[in-house]
């Protein structure tokens, strides 16, 4: 048992630390200390810097503008960024850099890689994701958005929902049904579609926290080039599934850092409200601490498998279920610590829409109460807790599937 990293990873850590020391003021408290507008401004510039130094593309091959390093280097980078309180790019990089670029590197044609990868890296194309539909949430495979070939173009009709950031994006990658005859998981293709066209309408909607983040996207005879299908026609389900494991190593390493920082902020909150001596609150804090520490140790186990190249497995369900259920509890504790003050949010909401507020953020009721609300969505998006438990029961424990209902 050994939780240290090999020398080449530690050397890279030094490089990153040097970079951060050089770029950030000595007393940099974390991006959370900035107000909303300055934070956006900082993020934009910071992203440029990261792109320029190759930190957005650590694992990409050199021929595509990457540094050709290992996944472990990527993990080290993510750890150091999280620790320093600076973001990995802009929010949309989740879709562009992390999801689409990794998909293209695995499944894309040479033309697709040559055209799109540099533009993603440069931030010229901003991407969003079009998977979920109003009637295909947990049951994604029942999606009904259709794409039909008309000459050298796909013609797309249907509706997507929960597309984060579509109102700021240029392109969307879409799962669409291209073969009506194939069984449920077959006949789906992974298409790249420009958003700026008459056949696409984007309607933002608010979350219960009041924040605008998600959109509905309507396709009415929207079009894209015939060759903008990734990984082959009718192969989209496989392409999409292959992405599921991409982030698990990074998340395993960075989630505990994020949640530990949040919990330390909560302990400070308890002190602010004079609740740190309350034995009942102390029990709950200790419970949370045990959960976060254990998240880190569970993370090491996931990381161990991931670094050994094991196929992405159901441990991502363990991780998802673990942090999302934990986050319900710790944010509820924050509310109870603040008591009456919790109901009167003061201060800006968190900068990042999901999980914890950024390092350096003011320990305010405005930050915590929004995080509290958003935490309620954590057990829903990216597979509800119910779906995760099903996966664990069937894939890990080998329990029998439920009898299928007669199809209507």
């Amino acid at each position, binding site marked *: 048992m050994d939780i240290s990293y090999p020398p080449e990873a530690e050397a890279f850590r030094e490089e990153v630390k040097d970079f951060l020391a050089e770029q950030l003021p000595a007393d940099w408290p974390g991006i959370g200390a900035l107000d909303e507008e300055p934070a956006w401004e900082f993020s934009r510039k910071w992203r440029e810097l990261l792109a320029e130094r190759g930190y957005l593309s650590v694992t990409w091959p050199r021929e595509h503008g990457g540094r050709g390093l290992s996944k472990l280097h990527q993990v080290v980078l993510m750890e150091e960024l999280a620790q320093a309180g600076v973001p990995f790019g802009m929010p949309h990089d989740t879709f562009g850099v992390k999801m689409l670029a990794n998909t293209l590197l695995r499944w894309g044609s040479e033309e697709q890689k040559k055209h799109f990868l540099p533009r993603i890296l440069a931030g010229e194309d901003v991407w969003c994701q079009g998977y*979920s539909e109003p009637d295909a949430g947990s049951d994604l495979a029942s999606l009904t958005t259709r794409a039909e070939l008309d000459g050298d173009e796909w013609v797309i009709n249907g509706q997507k929902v929960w597309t984060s950031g579509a109102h700021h994006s240029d392109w969307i990658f879409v799962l669409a049904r291209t073969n009506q005859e194939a069984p449920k998981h077959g006949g789906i293709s992974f298409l790249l579609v420009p958003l700026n066209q008459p056949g696409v309408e984007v309607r933002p909607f608010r979350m*219960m926290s*009041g924040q605008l983040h998600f959109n509905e996207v309507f396709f009415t005879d929207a079009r894209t080039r015939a060759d903008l299908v990734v990984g082959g026609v009718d192969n989209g389900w496989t392409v999409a599934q292959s992405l599921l494991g991409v982030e698990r190593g990074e998340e395993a390493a960075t989630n505990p850092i994020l949640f530990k920082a949040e919990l330390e902020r909560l302990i400070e909150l308890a002190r602010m409200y004079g609740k740190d001596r309350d034995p009942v609150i102390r029990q709950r804090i200790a419970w949370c601490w045990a959960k976060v520490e254990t998240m880190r140790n569970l993370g090491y186990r996931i990381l161990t498998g991931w670094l050994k190249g094991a196929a992405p497995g159901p441990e991502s369900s363990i991780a998802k279920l673990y942090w999302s259920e934990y986050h319900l509890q710790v944010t509820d504790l924050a509310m109870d610590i603040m*008591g009456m003050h919790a109901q009167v*949010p003061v201060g800006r909401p968190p900068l990042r829409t999901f999980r914890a507020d950024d390092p350096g953020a003011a320990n305010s009721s405005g930050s915590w109460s929004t995080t509290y*609300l958003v935490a*309620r969505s954590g057990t829903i998006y990216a597979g509800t807790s119910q779906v995760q438990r099903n996966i664990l029961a069937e894939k890990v424990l080998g329990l029998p599937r439920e009898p299928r209902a007669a*199809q209507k």
Partner: protein
Amino acid sequence: MDFAFDEDQEELRRTVRAFLEATAPEAETRRTMETEAGYDQALWRRMGSELGLQGLAIPEEHGGAGAGPVEVGLVMEEMGRAMLCAPYLASAVQATTALLHSDDEEARTELLPALAAGEQVATLALTEDSARWNREGVTLTARAGADGGWLLDGHKTFVLDGAQADVVLTVARATDGIGIFLVAGDAPGLTRTTLPTLDLTRRQARLEYRDVPARRLRTRGDGWELVEVVLRHSAVALAAEQVGVASRALEMAVEYAKVRHQFGRAIGSFQAVKHLLADSLMEVESARAAAYAALLSAQNGEGDLPMAASLAKSLCSDASVKVTQDNIQVHGGIGFTWEHPAHLYFKRAKTSQLLLGDSAYHRELLAQAIGV
């Protein structure tokens, strides 16, 4: 032995429910919660003049219906169900209870008829920045004025509907102990600021007092004892509201689980959803039993009110938070959108859990009440 509402009470419930369904549907809640006052004053007056809801606990000689806490609780439950924006807890429960249990017939004669009719709104200003519910939390001072009146200095916060109230019953520290003081909403020296609230359906305010003229409410004994009576009645009424909030959230979840299909089946046919909702049913039924028992204690002025109130407040709050959260979970993505009403219920449930003292606080009070 009939642990059920009697026919008059059931009739009252039907009337209130029909009235709120007609006058305060979700769209109205959403409209009203964005207004400055935070409630619909015309509707408030109709509730007073047509239904007499604000005066249910007020004796007939003061313009009320001469009913009591059970009827008030029943109305709170329906208002919770309907997610009504209205200063009922502040005015018809807190301020009214203080007046009714005071030793000040003059104040009753002067104030209650207008409160009962929905022509005026009153509230109780107790908590300060320290957010404490005990005697020690009261630092706002009252000193005798020149004309036999009093002058108040200090602050109050988290005052329910405090920026709208015509009369603010202010708990203050005088040299001879804690007193409750009647302050006009537009009194000189009083500055009122509406607070941003997580639950948009119930307004709160911060009040700054600078030499604010006030009249002292006559009380039997120390004013703090009366405050405790008001807190207990408020806790019971709020517990009843939580029952309404939780039971409507459960209905929403059940309705949705029957029609929403995933994996080729109504999601309500999956045991995971079924059992979650069965547990919610247990919570709602338990909360209902606890709240109704507490209403009965409040009605009968029984010695076990401290126990019943803390019991109901903690149990009903915990139930309501759980059930309204699970309602979001059952709805999936749609459940955490602004457009869907699930969050209104959830926010009301969580903030009400914190209001008047959280569940751990009330469990400790309960332990004391049962002599542990």
